[in-house]
């Protein structure tokens, strides 16, 4: 289907099903239960899952295929966000032109940076991209937000003000980003017994776009172009002596992944019309690197898993405070309850960084191929168990013959 082989079609369908059903899957616990803390099915976080999924998918096209490790991709995300918010400010709250503009501007920006950075490879390339991104961040944070020429609005973040022109905005349209009148924030809440599920317009827009770009990524991975990029990673020497000028290919990959980042940035702004400079900082670039490696660089689904994993920690674990802990362990006798809270306390709430750091180490030590590798190992283990069982049954039948 869609020009994909059977395995990829299945993967695409699985991803599609999961994203469509996400409001159910991410809210497995009844709203009033103590476990509700672990629910992630509220609009903002679901949006973040898919948006950062897009970001990581795009990053993986560059890093996973060519092996070029960019430490500056957050700059393209940030540029995309700024472009989108400027579209809101100048023209209309409709998200379509904003998203298109975000992708275009990020594409141009990544073409410029990629053209220069790709003159070098290895860690030199990484540092060049890092340098460009840090420069962009510094400029956005202060220099370009001075009162005379305010392009970014600095630390507060670029936002839409009532006195902005918004030329095509008129009464009757929501005063928030919308898709031809459908506000990105409109949410339908379905109560089923003790459960509650949110269906958010913005989330489904992001999910649809993510499925589209995921499909595109699968096609790129499977095309001769994708193969060529993998060849770059595998053996650049051979490629040079094979009559191929690798630079246009790597540059194309760089720009494509930059446009993915811009798309993610545009969507972030479309869900919440504010563009902060911090999303361009090197830590944000590092985050997408970690997402990709954590999930499994070079795999199709890995980056999405990695993105979900990190965003889940950031948003769920950081909110578990001592009060919540006491609730969890309240069934225990007081002494043990306090002890348990004492044990768990350093790892949640303000300690979520610690848990994340430990998990990075555990994953990379025990699962060299990231989470996807872990999944494959579990699959293999299950199959081998099943195999053993069959062996046993066959073993018991053999002597009878």
């Amino acid at each position, binding site marked *: 289907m869609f020009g994909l082989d059977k395995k990829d079609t299945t993967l695409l369908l699985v991803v599609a099903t999961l994203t469509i059903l996400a409001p159910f899957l991410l809210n497995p616990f009844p709203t009033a239960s103590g476990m509700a803390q672990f629910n992630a099915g509220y609009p903002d976080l679901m949006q973040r899952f898919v948006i950062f999924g897009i970001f990581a998918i795009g990053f993986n096209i560059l890093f996973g295929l060519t092996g070029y*490790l960019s430490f500056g991709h957050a700059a393209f995300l940030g540029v995309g966000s700024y472009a989108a918010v400027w579209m809101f400010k100048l023209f209309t709250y409709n998200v379509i032109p904003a998203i298109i503009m975000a992708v275009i501007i990020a594409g141009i920006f990544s073409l410029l940076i990629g053209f220069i950075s790709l003159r070098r490879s290895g*860690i030199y390339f990484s540092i060049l991209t*890092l340098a460009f991104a840090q420069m962009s961040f510094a400029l956005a944070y202060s220099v370009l937000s001075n009162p005379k020429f305010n392009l970014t609005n600095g630390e507060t973040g670029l936002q839409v003000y009532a006195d902005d022109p918004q030329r095509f905005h008129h009464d009757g349209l929501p005063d928030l980003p919308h898709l031809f009148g459908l506000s990105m924030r409109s949410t339908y809440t379905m109560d089923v017994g003790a459960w509650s599920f949110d269906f958010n317009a913005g989330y489904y827009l992001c999910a649809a776009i993510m499925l589209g770009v995921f499909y595109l990524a699968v096609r790129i991975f499977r095309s001769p172009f994708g193969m060529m990029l993998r060849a770059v990673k595998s053996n*650049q020497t051979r490629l040079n002596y094979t009559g191929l000028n690798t630079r246009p290919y790597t540059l194309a990959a760089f720009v494509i992944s930059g446009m993915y980042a811009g798309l993610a940035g545009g969507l972030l702004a479309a869900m919440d019309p504010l563009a902060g400079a911090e999303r361009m900082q090197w830590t944000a670039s590092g985050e997408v690197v970690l997402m990709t490696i954590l999930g499994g660089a070079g795999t199709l689904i890995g980056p999405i898993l990695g993105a979900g994993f990190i965003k889940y920690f950031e948003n769920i674990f950081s909110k578990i405070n001592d009060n919540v802990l006491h609730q969890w362990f309240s069934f225990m006798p007081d002494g043990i309850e306090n002890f348990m809270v004492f044990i768990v306390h350093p790892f949640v709430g303000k300690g979520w960084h610690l848990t994340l750091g430990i998990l990075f180490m555990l994953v*990379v030590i025990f699962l060299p191929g990231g989470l996807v590798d872990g999944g494959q190992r579990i699959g293999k283990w299950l199959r081998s168990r099943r195999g053993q069982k069959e062996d046993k049954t066959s073993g018991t039948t053999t002597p009878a013959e």
Partner: protein
Amino acid sequence: MDGFLLQILNGLDKGSAYALIALGLTLIFGTLGVVNFAHGALFMIGAFCAVTLQRFLSLSYTVEDPTQKDFLGNPLKVETPYVESWFGPEVGSTIIDWSVPLAILLAIPVMVFLGLVMERGLIKHFYKRPHADQILVTFGLAIVLQEIIKYYFGANPIQTPAPDALSGVANVGAIVGMELLYPVWRIVYFCFAVLIIFGVFAFLQFTTFGMVVRAGMADRETVGLLGINIDRRFAIMFGVAAAVAGLAGVMYGPINPPNYHMGMDFLVLSFVVVVVGGMGSLPGAVLAGFMLGILESFASTTWATTTIPGINQIIIYLVAIIVLLARPRGLMGRKGVMED
């Protein structure tokens, strides 16, 4: 003119910290081929060795003084450090006063030990893994180390003042017959950095151990074939690199009070320094450290910022870009190192 000289001094001072961190980073990279994102954390832990020693020396017993009240109106608990009661107030307070230089003695074994444990326990298993994996695992380690420090010492900076005798300003211009006041401790820091750098170079240049390590850096396999246990030597070099970063941290405390994220603040910069100097080149790291320090200082003068607005924010990165485009392997990089 004084302004110019002052900025040179400032640059040398900043450069000292950059150079020391980059030196360790390059040692680890050059010997082990490992990209160590936890190196900033080692610098930070060094600084916290000084904090720990200062806390330890200031351990106090408390006596309630009914004549004074605390903020709730209860009798004030007056704290007296044990060292003051054992050695008398004068000697005791002098010991506390000198806690930062004394912390060097604590930091060397602690950092070497930490470096060895890190290498044997974790990094060793990552030699053959892609650089991306090394980055992920050392970054994870950096976060963990940082959070542990934050858990015990808080997020707020902690003052670790220089000894009274070494604080204040000195007239460094006296030699050339002009007035040029500069903080004593910063001069100490610069001299200390130069000493360490020379120490490391001498160690590599003039000891058999160092010669083997240098040979191993150039061609690991051949040295391995000669029946030399190069791995153990490299592990020790990791310990040395950790100690260099740690010492840089200990002595940095009086310049700017340590906090748990100071390592991350330096990490990106020191990577830029290493790459500008040329991956794997020790003299390159030192040269680039001082060069970037001085450039950064000059970029922050009013003259520079009015000529090019925002130059002080981007100078380091701008220089990195220019150097890498003009000289593909950095200032003194070797061919073929880390190019793919």
